[in-house]
């Protein structure tokens, strides 16, 4: 293992981490407001499929990104309606939605593109070297020679953190997730705020999907998210609902994924299936080790009833 191996590993880790960052930043906000983003997984698939579809057909990557995000947001409305307004159990709806999303995009994929072995590739986003910063050894290559979606994910995390910590909006979101009755008594429309928070989460999950197809893979494959949505949920807990910490954790999990890919190629006595399972195993271990002593938003996952006593 030499320096160039590590540089390449972490640079790839950063790229692998981008979808995780988008997904977990959105979920931080949504969970702070009291809605669990179990359905991020499905929203990522929707985002990935529609961003691929639009980018391929229009030849415009940015249109793809936009439509992916919108697809994520619109699909989140469905879940939001059931969990926030009809007060159903968020976990069950989320899981049902994930199954639906996987099935429905498979259906669309086969209907539109036919059953082919290799799907059409699109030109992904090109890396942009940041002048000056990209010259720094190792760090330059890892963080400052990436594509635009990577930079945007970090900017998004920082802005989200600032909004959550410094503005009244952030305070209101916190109140809605901690003590919705108090929020209501302070004149905050609890359900509307939860809807907005959840739509934001859908939007970023859509971006996560777009980043999968438009900057990493270049094409859509069935169930492309491969559990990333659930890793995002773990990241949010690990990051204690802080978007910037989630950003760092996303990079960490991305690096594990990158390492896993390399270990598979290098060949060893260990069956390669073990390496595929590695990131999920590590997620589990991390949650067990770091998942105690946490303080989740008090009313996380509890539907709010305006007139309840």
């Amino acid at each position, binding site marked *: 293992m030499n320096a160039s191996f590590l540089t390449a590993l972490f640079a790839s880790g950063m790229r692998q981490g981008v979808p995780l960052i988008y997904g977990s930043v959105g979920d931080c906000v949504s969970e702070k407001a009291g809605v669990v983003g179990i359905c991020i997984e499905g929203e990522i698939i929707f985002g990935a499929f529609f961003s691929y579809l639009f980018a391929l057909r229009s030849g415009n990557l940015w249109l793809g990104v936009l439509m992916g995000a919108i697809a994520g947001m619109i699909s989140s409305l469905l879940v939001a309606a059931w969990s926030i307004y009809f007060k159903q159990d968020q976990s069950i709806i989320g899981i049902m939605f994930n199954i639906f999303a996987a099935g429905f995009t498979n259906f669309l994929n086969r209907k539109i593109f036919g059953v082919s072995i290799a799907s059409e590739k699109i030109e992904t986003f090109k890396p942009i070297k940041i002048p000056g910063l990209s010259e720094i050894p190792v760090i330059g290559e890892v963080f400052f020679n990436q594509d635009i979606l990577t930079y945007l994910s970090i900017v998004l995390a920082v802005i989200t953190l600032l909004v959550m910590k*410094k*503005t*009244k*909006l*952030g*305070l*209101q979101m*916190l*109140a809605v997730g*901690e*003590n919705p*009755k*108090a*929020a*209501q*008594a*302070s*004149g*905050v*429309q609890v359900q509307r705020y939860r809807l907005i928070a959840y739509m934001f989460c859908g939007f970023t999950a859509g971006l996560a999907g777009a980043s999968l197809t438009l900057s990493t893979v270049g094409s859509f494959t069935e169930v492309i998210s491969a559990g990333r949505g659930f890793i995002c949920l773990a990241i949010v807990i690990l990051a204690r609902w802080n978007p910037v910490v989630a950003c760092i954790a996303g990079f960490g999990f991305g690096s594990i994924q990158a390492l896993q890919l390399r270990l598979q190629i290098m060949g060893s006595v260990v069956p390669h299936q073990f390496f595929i399972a590695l990131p999920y195993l590590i997620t589990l271990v991390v949650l067990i080790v770091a998942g105690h002593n946490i*303080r989740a938003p*008090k009313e996380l996952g509890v539907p709010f009833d*305006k*007139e309840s*006593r």
Partner: protein
Amino acid sequence: MDNKKKSLLKIEGITKTFGKVVANDDISLELYEGEVLALLGENGAGKSTLMNIIYGIYRPDAGRIEIRGKETKIASPRYALNKGIGMVHQHFMLVGRCNAIENICLISKTSPFSLVNQKRIAASLEEIKARYGIDVDIHCPVEQLSISMQQKVEILKLLYTGADILILDEPTAVLLPQECEALFSIIRNMTKEGKGVIFISHKLDEIIEISDRVDVLAHGKMCGHLITKEADKNAIVKMMSGDNVPDMSGYVKQKPQDEVVFSCRGIEAYDDRKAKTLDGVDLEVYKGEIIGIAGVEGNGQNELAEVLAGVRKVIAGSISIKGKSLRPNRPADFIKNGVGYIPAERNGVGTVPDFMLYENWLLRKAHFPTKNGMIDTKQVVHQSIGAISEYDVRTTGPLERSANLSGGNLQKFILSRELKKKPEVLICSYPTRGLDVKAACFVRNQITKAKQEGTSTILFSGDMEELFTISDRIVVLNRGKVVGERVPEQTTQEEIILMMMGEKA
């Protein structure tokens, strides 16, 4: 009534029903500038419902509301706040993790996209604090403040919004006597500035002290408007409950028997924050004895009650009933051996709020009525109906969600559940806290009735009069230790209070 005073709020014919229960039935009242209007009524009379309607949380089924002479519909709390209506809820509406400044920022009228300017809010809060004589730490997360401090944060919140119609929903229920005085002086400062205050309570003495007028509510109906100065205490009570005030004056204490039924030795335990709050408590309870435990909040009473009921771990010590030792922190063991428990928290510990009454009836039962190996629901419902009627629990029936019961009715239900088992020992943790005169008296009566049937009671209470009237012995706790015991007839309240403070033993 002074007609020159301007009307701040006028409501007419307000009606509100929850399912089949009519909480408010054609209620009208009016609030003027610079006065304290007391709203008096028993638990479940519909006071809180009415206030939640005025504050825009509930929508009335019928009726009209005028604010400063203009008819209006209060659609939401935000609207109420904009109209100058502020409310301190019975259960505080604070975000525990946030400090007072942040909680107050939440209620301010600034745009959601504005930055939280803690310094500016803090400066104006300091000014309000000085003006009304409110002393509270505004930088500390409110969950770390005591209840009375949290209440002050709530009042600051109202004053910050500039509200001039102030609703205080049972503000004294959670306060110690000296804290009440501080609250009253704040209220007087507020009315001096022309603000109108609606003060809700079921404590007569306070109302006579603080209010200018009294409106009496009973069973969801308005049944009297009085001017406090001219009012006769007995007349008010009669209005409130529809009959004479029950009291314990006729109660004659019977000497307990010589046999020790329940005892604990050297009990040491932690509280929830892992601080050692019980430090070697010994207690012996005789058959048919009511033993009162007095202490200033936080001196280990809550923990002792939980240990004696078998729901808290101990570091050291032993508990035994009739010579048989009980394994600490094994509630099932305690239940089986005849320890009854009335927890301080009725909703959540005493009952599962979302369960129906008959389901809650099954809690803390060693044996369920069964049929063919399964729970005999019919029998359970039948038993709970019996208890509901015998203990006069006002509810729609055993299928009611227990969260929908008022405090007094829920307490009666829990009491019936425990006493029907004919326990050897009953652990009662603040059984009459927050109850109205009638319900509290009912609870005390039941405890004394159980005593005659041989049940011993360990009564934790903050109500001195209660301790003196019904207990045979008063044991005083201070810093997790028993600092002394007295027979009520041979001591004074002052002496007990001094002992509670740890100044005399």
